[in-house]
């Protein structure tokens, strides 16, 4: 994505007063809810350190754990498929659907399926994919994409949702009553669960030890998708694997508390096999599609690998002053917010998405709350370095794509000035005399769009201090 297009979408988002109000309100609530369940700072820190250790341990043995997961799942009767790219993953899903001659898929919430652009792909093959998570259902009706990785329709307020339902759901009256809106969605979706031949879901954690797929949700639609249709397809990024079942309780506590400020979600699904002989419900076939899509490349760099610790709780979005103001769509990619800024440039390449790494004041609000302690600001800096890097070695695609003479000379000049203190003093003095006459161009013009010009001092600190007899060595 070019910088211009990001800037344009930012301008559009910032000019949308309703959108900014919706986000400010919703994010403020999420921050308060999270704070309430993590009120004991010491205990929270202990838990975050544990979450970090669990994910680091899993990543340190990633290839082994993935093989172990495949073996355990296979033993349990879950069919495992590997997909290096989203195109391969889409094809695998399509083949399973076609082998059952199914025309309709009900979907639980899955960001990996968004990453695959699965709905569009299936649509092009004549298969209807129906989102059953309420937020996803809303934006599917509106023909939009998620603006948040946990609450995809958070950019809409009640009135906007009421209008979408009224316009798009046959027979739905206009109502802003939440209970009635829920009832409309439930009525519409309930039928679809029974009619669909395939249920598709994401995976929050995949346990290598037992071959268990863990899925958390609050609406019960996830359980419906994974139990009602005869076939269940789960899609996951390969970083979702953890070592053992005992890793789940702390991770679930961290994920749930960070994401929605709950102590536990309404539904915690642990899926270990298809329906067994004598069981009365559950799908007769379960497929697990494990997607790479650049993750194994990210894995190769020990620092950047920390990106893969992410549990997709979305709390970095909620606490981000940039996300809160521009919303998720302005980023132009599937994963918005701080996690999107470190993940997307690595997956899509720096040429296409590297600009995202610069759209941060590095305030650190995200890494202060990250449940698995991803050093987000350090990784943003690292991606900035990569963008200008002149070193030949490296794993990030598009490395060095921002190199240009103008900036190199500017920073070279800056370094020269700041390693020659006398020259530096002269420039300070000069700014003091001529600062008011600087032409409002370049960075100064951009500064002055929202602020007055800095008032340079006639005499700098060093000259003033010298006059007052303060020692200078």
């Amino acid at each position, binding site marked *: 994505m070019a910088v211009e297009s990001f800037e344009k979408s930012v301008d559009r988002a910032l000019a949308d007063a309703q959108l900014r109000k919706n986000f400010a309100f919703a994010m403020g609530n999420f921050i308060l809810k999270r704070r309430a369940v993590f009120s004991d700072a010491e205990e929270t820190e202990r838990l975050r350190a544990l979450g970090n250790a669990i994910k680091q341990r899993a990543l340190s043995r990633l290839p082994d754990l993935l093989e172990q997961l495949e073996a355990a799942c296979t033993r349990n009767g879950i069919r495992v498929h590997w997909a290096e790219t989203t195109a391969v993953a889409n094809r695998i899903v399509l083949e399973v659907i076609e082998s059952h001659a199914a025309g309709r898929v009900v979907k639980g919430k899955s960001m990996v399926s968004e990453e695959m652009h699965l709905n569009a792909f299936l649509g092009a093959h004549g298969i209807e994919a129906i989102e059953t998570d309420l937020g996803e259902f809303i934006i599917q009706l509106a023909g939009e994409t998620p603006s948040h990785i946990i609450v995809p329709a958070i950019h809409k307020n009640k009135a906007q949702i009421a209008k979408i339902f009224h316009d798009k759901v046959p027979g739905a009256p206009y109502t802003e009553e939440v209970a009635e809106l829920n009832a409309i969605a439930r009525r519409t979706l309930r039928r679809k669960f029974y009619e669909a031949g395939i249920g598709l879901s994401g995976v929050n954690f995949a346990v290598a030890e037992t071959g268990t797929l863990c899925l958390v949700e609050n609406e019960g639609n996830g359980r419906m998708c994974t139990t009602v249709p005869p076939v269940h397809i789960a899609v996951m990024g390969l970083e979702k694997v953890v070592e053992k079942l005992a890793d789940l309780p702390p991770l679930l506590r961290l994920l749930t508390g960070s994401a929605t400020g709950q102590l536990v979600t309404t539904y915690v699904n642990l899926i270990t096999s298809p329906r067994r002989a004598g069981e009365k419900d559950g799908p007769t076939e379960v497929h697990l599609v494990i997607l790479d899509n650049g993750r194994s490349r990210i894995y190769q760099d020990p620092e950047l690998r920390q990106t893969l610790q992410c549990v997709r709780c979305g709390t970095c979005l909620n606490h981000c002053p940039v996300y809160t103001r521009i919303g998720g769509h302005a980023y132009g990619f599937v994963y918005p917010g701080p996690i999107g800024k470190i993940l997307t440039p690595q997956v899509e390449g720096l040429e296409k998405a590297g600009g995202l790494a610069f759209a941060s004041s*590095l305030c650190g609000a995200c890494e202060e709350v990250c449940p698995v302690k991803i050093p987000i600001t350090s990784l943003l800096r690292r991606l900035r370095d990569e963008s200008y890097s002149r070193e030949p070695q490296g794993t990030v695609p598009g490395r060095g794509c*921002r190199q240009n003479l103008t900036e190199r000379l500017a920073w070279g000049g800056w*370094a020269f*000035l*700041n390693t020659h203190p006398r020259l530096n003093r002269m420039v300070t003095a000069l700014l003091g005399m001529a600062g008011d006459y600087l032409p409002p161009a370049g960075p100064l013009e951009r500064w002055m769009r929202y602020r007055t010009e800095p008032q340079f001092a006639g005499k700098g600190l060093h000259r003033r201090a010298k006059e*007052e007899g*303060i020692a200078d060595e």
Partner: protein
Amino acid sequence: MTPETSKPSRVYFFGTCLIDAVYPDAGLAAIRLIEREGVRVVLPAGQSCCGQPAYNSGFPAEARAVARRQLQAFPEEIPVVVPSGSCAGMMKHHYPALFAGDPDLSSAQAFSGRVFEWSEFMVRVLGARYEDRGGPLRVTWHSSCHALREMRVIEHSKHLLRQLQNVELVELPGERECCGFGGTFSVKHPAISGAMVNDKVDDIQRTGAARVIAGDCGCLMNITGAADRRGLPFAGQHLAEFIWERIHGG
């Protein structure tokens, strides 16, 4: 709060490039307040910038060259006091990473160990006490991100501020949120930065405070620049300059 360590006889002062060029009064006040506690201040002429602008912009080699100059400018084993949470955070927490694999790594680590943010030094080492001679005044406080999250010195700053008994401190509802400065971020993404600073300015305006006090001149330049541009009545001041003024009846 009582001092945790014994008082040194001399300290270094790192003036920061922004204070040198735009806010010398803040720097001088910070120096005078240290000397008021009976500690001699040395302001080495060889210093310049902590290197953070390049470090955050994808130019680590240039940042390292400038940072190396600072290592040389502060050779003695005495504290380096920095009137900015951001520059202090850079020197204390990022120099070791910046010099990873560099022959100067160990001297960078030793240097980092000597860095104090100014208010932290005034409280933890000097145990400074102040008597307010100014008239009643309502102020609010803005926490800079790096003072808050890297240096973790906000309680020290507020401890000093609360000693001024005629000053009413109104807490800012969005105190922990970034003002949108972010160094080069403010000119690389002016629209986002502008939206952030205007929200900050609105937040300050609603407190009815006559002044916003902060420990970082980058934030102050951003916040007061946006307030001035909109013709709002409140002013901004560095904590050291504010204290100096208050104890002299201003």
